[in-house]
Structure formats: C-alpha cells, structure tokens
C-alpha cells in the first residue's frame, strides 16, 4: 500500500451558523421593515426578535448600508439577498474547503467573525493499493476482516480473522466528567473544620420574624439596619408569635429598659429574609440553655445590596456560638485563634469592635496575599440583655464571618457572581486544585 497524507484547511458550520441557514438576522429585519411600511422603532424590533438577535440584526444591516437610524427608528433603505452566504453555510455543514464555498476572502472572514463558520485542520489520506497488495488480497481469500470486536467474536474465537489497526494517535471525541460545584466543596470544607472543633451543626428557616433577626439581638427597633434599604422584607403576612409569649415579655422588658422606648410587638412579627445567621444561633440558644453548647450554622443571608463584583443581595455567613460555665474573653480569643489556624492562616490580629448584641466585641484580621490585613471575624460575648432575653444564665461567645469573600480569596476569584454562575463551562473550568495558598 502507498499512503499519502495531505493536510488542508476546511470550514465547518457552527451551531450559530445552523440557526441562519434559512435567513440571516439582517435579512429578517429588512423583511420585517418592508411589512411595517419601511420603518420601525428599536423597541418594536427587540420585542419581535429578542434583544440579542435584534442588536445583531441592526448592527449588520447598518454595516451593509441597508438601514439608517433616525431618533430611535430604524428606516429601511433597501438591501439584497444573502443567498450566496447561506448556500456556503449549507455546504460547510459537513465541512468544505474555501474554494468549495465560493465566497471571497472578506465574505469568508465575516462568517468566521460572526461565529457561523469555524476553521479546522483536516487530514486527507489517499491510500493506493499497489500491485503486491492486490496479490496479497487474493491470497487472503476467505479471511474475515474485523473492525469492531463483538461478544460473538470473543465467544466463537474464529480462526483466520484480521483485526484492522486503528489510528491510535488520532484525537478522540471530547467528553467531560461530572463535577462537584467548587463553592459547595468550599462550604463542605468549612463544615468539616467546624465539626472537627466540636461544634454541632444547626439548620434553620430562611424566612424569619424580626424578633429573631433583630429584637432578641438587642438591635433597637428604630435601628437603620431594619429599614427597607438594608433588609429584604417579605410581602404580606406576618409571624404568629403566640408561641413565644414568655420570650416577648423578656424582650419587651429589655428593650424598654435599654433603649427607653415602648416596645412594639407588631415590628417583632414582621417577616424578613434572614439578614444574619446569628438569627439562627440565638434561636438555637433559646432552646439549649444549659452548658456546654457549641453550635454553628453555614447558611444563606439576604440584604438590600446592589449587584456588582463585590456585592449580591444573597450570600453566605458562618456563625458560631459557645457556652460554657466560665466562658471568657480570653476563651473567645482562643476559639477564634483555633478557627483561624484551621482555615490555614498563621496569625490573627484582634481589634475591639462594636455590634449591638455583644460586649466586649472583637474584630479579627488576617493577612491575605496582596490584600494585606482583611477583616475575617466579628465576634464577642453576648450582652447580658441578650442572655436575659434568650433565658440563658451563662456567658456565651459568638462570632460570625462572611463566607463568600473568604471563598473568593481561597479560590482566587475576584467577582462574587462567579460563585453562583449559570455557565456550565465555568464549572468545568474550576478545580479543587485551583485552591490558592492564601498566606
């Protein structure tokens, strides 16, 4: 045999190209304008075409000089059929060379740029059976030529078969494994750390009355954090706090004494999307009043935050509490040091802070790569007012941390929206291996 390989470039129609086999968007636009009397508003076109296709249609029609835009209206100035382009796309469905397509190099470039065609390298193999070969074929006679092994062949083990060789050096079809989500993996890692430090996991509802989200945490009823530009409020309906009569008595007493106003129970029953996971830990404490208590939650929280690279109205927090007979500030610092070490940071720096529900309050800072010192914890001992409201007689250490920001530092992501991406290709791209060393 004589085998000759020739490399050549072919063009193949993409999925985008397949969509345009019948008509190009700009042709559809022209047809539409004709039916609408020669002009239409951009809005009308967007309604009919969908935003994305409308903008492509208008852009290309303008480029071809088929339309002009006058104060938001698209006015047709006449065009031509793109049949030649469409014919070329049809030819390229199974792959074709530039010559086969019959387009000028500019026209070809346009279809590639519009992602309707892709250029591929193809190998043309010419096999010529030479004289000797023909003779051998004759000699082989009844020999069975096998290309794919089957169960029958394996069982029968026939004599005289010829298993055709494969081109084992060719590129195979591309397949992808199923991936675990990288952010869920990160949340699982945090969960493991907390469990290993002896904390029990809590889960709780996302919709809560302000009683748990604010009141029991000693946040004044006129505190700005409760307003609609900070907390997401549930439309209609309020909680029935009938089961929490005793608790409400205690909350009412502490608020009147501490903040000097008349406590308003209708504010307490207003439903909000949980804005801090402390709402869940304090509720747990209300039901678990005897030491030792060590509990944590990793959960979603909601705030009225603009949507950009650093903010989302929905994100995650980790909150932990620890109650012992002799919980102290130094023990709180001990917990924070352990958690920080378990997360892989060498050093943590403490700074006094302010939170409505803790006293003393401590903020924890760690060094993250180029970012320098970054606040990682808010923490403290629950205020006596909070303990009395929850019906607890021992000191309780509490801390909370923003999980999304930490994940971003770990995973070297600089846009928070990436954590919740709807693009499968992005998920295929992330690996656990992309975890960055952060110190």
């Amino acid at each position, binding site marked *: 045999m004589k085998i000759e390989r020739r490399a050549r470039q072919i063009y193949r129609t993409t999925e985008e190209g397949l969509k345009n086999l019948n008509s190009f968007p700009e042709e559809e636009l022209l047809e539409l304008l004709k039916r609408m009397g020669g002009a239409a508003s951009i809005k009308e076109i967007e309604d009919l075409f969908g935003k994305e296709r409308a903008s492509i249609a208008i852009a290309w029609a303008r480029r071809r000089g088929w339309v002009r835009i006058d104060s938001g209206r698209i006015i047709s100035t006449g065009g031509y059929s793109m049949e030649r382009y469409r014919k070329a796309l049809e030819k390229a469905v199974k792959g074709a060379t530039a010559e086969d397509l019959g387009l000028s190099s500019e026209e070809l470039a346009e279809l590639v740029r519009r992602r309707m065609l892709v250029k591929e390298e193809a190998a043309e193999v010419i096999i010529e059976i030479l004289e000797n070969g023909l003779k051998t074929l004759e000699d082989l006679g009844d020999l069975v030529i096998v290309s794919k092994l089957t169960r029958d062949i394996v069982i029968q083990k026939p004599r005289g078969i010829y298993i055709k060789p494969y081109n084992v050096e060719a590129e195979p079809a591309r397949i992808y494994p199923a991936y675990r989500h990288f952010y869920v993996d990160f949340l699982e890692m945090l969960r493991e750390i907390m*469990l290993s430090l002896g904390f029990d996991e809590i889960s709780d509802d*996302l919709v809560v009355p302000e009683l748990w989200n604010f009141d029991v945490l000693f946040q004044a009823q006129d505190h700005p954090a409760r307003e609609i530009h900070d907390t997401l409020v549930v439309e209609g309906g309020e909680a029935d706090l009938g089961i929490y009569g005793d608790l409400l008595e205690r909350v009412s007493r502490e608020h009147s004494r501490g903040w000097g106003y008349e406590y308003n129970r209708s504010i307490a029953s207003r439903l909000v999307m949980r804005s801090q996971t402390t709402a869940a830990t304090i509720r747990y404490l209300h039901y678990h009043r005897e030491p030792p208590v060590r509990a944590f939650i990793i959960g979603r929280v*909601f705030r009225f935050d603009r949507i950009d690279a650093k903010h*989302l109205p929905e994100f995650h927090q980790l909150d932990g509490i620890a109650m012992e007979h002799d919980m102290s500030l130094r023990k709180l610092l001990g917990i924070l040091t352990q958690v920080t070490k378990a997360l892989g940071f060498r050093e943590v*720096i403490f700074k006094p802070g302010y939170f409505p529900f803790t006293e003393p309050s401590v903020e924890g800072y760690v060094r993250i790569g180029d970012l320098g010192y970054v606040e990682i914890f808010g923490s403290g001992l629950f205020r006596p007012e909070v303990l009395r409201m929850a019906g607890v007689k021992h000191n309780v250490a509490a801390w909370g941390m923003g999980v999304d920001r930490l994940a971003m530092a770990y995973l070297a992501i600089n846009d928070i929206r990436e954590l919740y991406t709807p693009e*499968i*290709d992005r998920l*295929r791209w992330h690996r656990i291996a992309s975890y960055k060393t952060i110190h």
Partner: protein
Amino acid sequence: MPVIRLSINRLIKAIGKEVSLKELERLLMRLKAEVEEVGDNHISIEINSDRLDMMISEGVARALKGLLEIEVGMPRYSYRDSGYKLEVLDVPSRPYIAMAIVRGIESSENYIEELIQFQEKLHTTIGRMRRKVAIGIHDLSKVPSRECVYRELEPSERLIPLGYSRSMSVAETLSSTEQGRLYGSISLRGGRTPGIVCGETIISMPPVINSNITRITEHTEDLLIDVTGIDLDAVIKTLEILSTTLAEGSRSRVIERVLVKAPWGVIETPRGDAKVMEIGTDWASRILGIEGMDPGEMARKLLMMRIDARVLDRVVEATIPPYRVDIIDPVDLVEEIAMAMDLNTLEPEPLATILPGKPSRESVVRRTIRDIMIGLGFTEIYRHVLTSSKILTDLGYNGFLRIKNPVSSEMDAARPSIIPSLLETLRRSQHSPKPIKIFEIGEIVTRDPSIYTGWRTRLSLAAAILDYEVSFEDIQAPLFSLLRSLGLEPKTVQAKNSVFIDGRTALVVVNDKQLGYVGEVRIEILSTLEIDFPVALFEIDISKILEILG
C-alpha cells in the same frame, strides 16, 4: 461605618504631643478606629458608630490622651448659668429641644470644616437622618436676643436661609433650597414647620436649615448649640456630646446652661451629669478570663479610658463622663478595660479538646445524594434562592414568596422549586458540549400555614438533562437509581403538571408519600425561556426523604 477627615495639625495640637503615624494607627485600633487614608495635611479615620464623641479632632484627642497617659480620668468642665432663656410652645411634629453655650473656641477654616462634619455624622447616626435628632450651631454674638422662643412658623414668615443673601418666606425656603427639598417634609404640619425665634428674628428652622444671620466664621468666639427632635432622651444625649466635646477644645472649658421652659417640663440644659456604675471585680475577671486581676489595675485601665474609677471592697466604682452615651451596662466597662489592655496582649486560652460535633441530618443526606448524583454523571450547580417572579409565573407557579423591596426584578421572589434555577442555567449553557446533565441540592421556600411564619424552608433536589434528543427514561433511570441507592423503592404514577408535557409527566412516589415530579419539559416553556433543545428533569423533596428515612 462613619469616616471622618481631620486636619493633622489640629489633631496633633489637640493631643499636645507628636505621635508617629504607626503609633497613631496602633492606638486608634485599640479605640475601634482605623486610619483609612493619610494626605499632606489631612487624615481620614473610620470611627465606630458607637463612639459619637470621636467624630472631631477634640474627641479623638481626648480619648488618645488617656491611652498615652497624658491625661487620665474623667475630663472636667465647669458649668454655669448663661442667662439665656428658651420658651417652648406646642410643636406637635417635633416637641423636644435643648440648648447649650460654649465660649472661647478657636475658630479657623479647618475648625469650621470639622464642626460641620461632626454635626453631619451625628445627623446620620443618632439623628436617623435628622428625623430623630437635628442640630443647629450658631455664632452666639450674632444671636439678637437672650430670649428665644421655639414654636411653629407660619408659611409667610421670613428669614435669610444659611448660604443665601436674600430674605425668603418659610414656604419658599422649604420648596426652593436644597436643604428644604431634602428635609422640609420631616416636621411639616399643615404648611407650618418648627422654628427658633430670638427677639423678632428666626435663627433656625430645624431640622431643615439655619438662618444666615448667625453663621459661624473664622472670627466666631462663642457658640450657641440647639438640638431638636422627637425623642427627649436622644436630644439630651446629643447635646451632652456636643457641649462637652466642643468645650474640650475651648480656652475656658466652660459650658453655660440655657433655661428651657416647655409644656413637657422646665429644665436647664446641658446637665453634665456623670453616671456612676459599680463593677464586681471577680465578675469582671471572670469575663476577661484573667483570674484574680488586681482591682487597682482595673481602675487604672478605666482611668486610661477617661473614666474615673476608685477601688472599694471587691468592687470598682466608675464615674462615666456625660459624653459616653454608649456605656449602658457594667459589661460595657469590662470592654473598656480590655481595650485599655490591648486585646493582642491578652493571651488566647485554648479550648479543651472534645469530641467532634454532629452534622445536621440535612447535611448528611445532602452529601450522600450529592455523591450519588455525581456518580450518575450529573454536574453540580449552585444558584440563588432569590429568583424572578416573571420566570416563576411563566412556569405556572403561584402563591410563592415575593420580596416587598426587591433590589432588582431578577431577584424579587424566593424560589418554591429548584426547576427555575436549572432551566435558567440550561438556557445560559445550552451551547456547551452535550449532553448537559446538571443537578442542584438547595433550599426552597413554600407556603405552609402550619408554621408560625407561614413560610417553610425545605431542602430539594432537582436534576435535568439537555441533549439533541432526550426521553422520559433518560431521566427516570437515574432517578430510580438514586432512590434505590438510598434504600427506597420508587414508583412513578401518571400525573399532570404545568411544567411537563401531558402524558410524559409522573408523580414520584415512595411508601405512598409523594416526593415530587419527573417528566419532559413542555415545548411552550422551552420556547418562552429560549431553550432550543429538549429537556427532561425531576425534582424531589429531600425533607420528605428525611421523614421516610426517620
């Protein structure tokens, strides 16, 4: 958190000692504050919102002098009668007012800048955007009379608003000045709004604007401060902070009281009363975690925080200056001691080792299901609970939770199912290599009158396949495989559902409990969502699986 911009010269002068930037940063950190930016002549500092007394150089320096032990204990100011009188009439929209006089200030361009900033920071914090409390500061020498009245102004009365050169009616001030448009509606009552009138002249229109007549300049020597509001306690506290902090920077350190005669009482303001509180030394030691801390040492730390302290038997008696309105309970004093000690010198006490914690049942089942789904070749996705009410309506859902104040129409509802999240992901990813097999395990929120909030958070699993061709069995097979792996025996029963094609929809049933639905998605839904490929999916309620597993 409020950020204040201070003149470095004024700050250093107020401290009375050169302090290096590094030292300043370290000291401020111990006062919950943080240096944000340093310029040639200015420094920006983030102050914690509980330290309202530190929103100006004088207040920051007062606290720093304690930590540096230049001046310790409670600062002293002398109080005397000013001879000024304020008569308060009935002002229903903003009943409360108090006044003070501070003499001998050292005004300058920088001083005025910081003074205005101090006022604005108090407005945005304790003042709740001037609604609860508003402040006016005047040049005392320009106040036309020692007899002032606080009353409602008629719309036709006239004044020259601050920053203007011509006289305007009250109505015009409300409608045409920027301050009027921003704050004019707060205390408006039938066209009338509160005003302070001294002699015949309006000097202020709280909470909106002052009159130009009493404007502060670089030549101002003495200040008249007014504070008005809807909460007497907050009004008094604000005046205590302002009068003591401004007197701190004055030559005389004298505060003069004003006699206020009001329907709600006759008082002389400001009081300048110090609060006395006792802390048990054993109790404080326990909270700090320092066994047997010396009471004398505790007292010394409080003195550094500008709080007077003396040791009695097993008790430290603390006298707290009137501007520390943030201290309301003895535990606040324990924090002061910790701050004076510097948290980083306190050795963290390690926790005793104990057994590992228990994961929640949800987590355990969630992890198991996650592993099985990945083994079945499905890629995990993770999306928001918040979604758009439009997509939910398009899919035929109703009675779901709506947000009253959504940030965007894309996130104005809580999902009652994971299906919308899956379909949105498929729409965005439909041009990726096929087959696309995805799943999500996550929270959903559904109406449930049996719990006290009316809304129950449930854990749900949904999985979908998108390909050039997809059939019912393609999704039914992995569903059955999953449930059998969990030790459950599933059945599918013919059903109808708004998401799935009639005749290709089934209820998923285990032990007579309905877990969810499986089927092929309706073509109308695919085309509404602009998905160009067939999709088959299932959703099951993990909370119900937990009930079955017991």
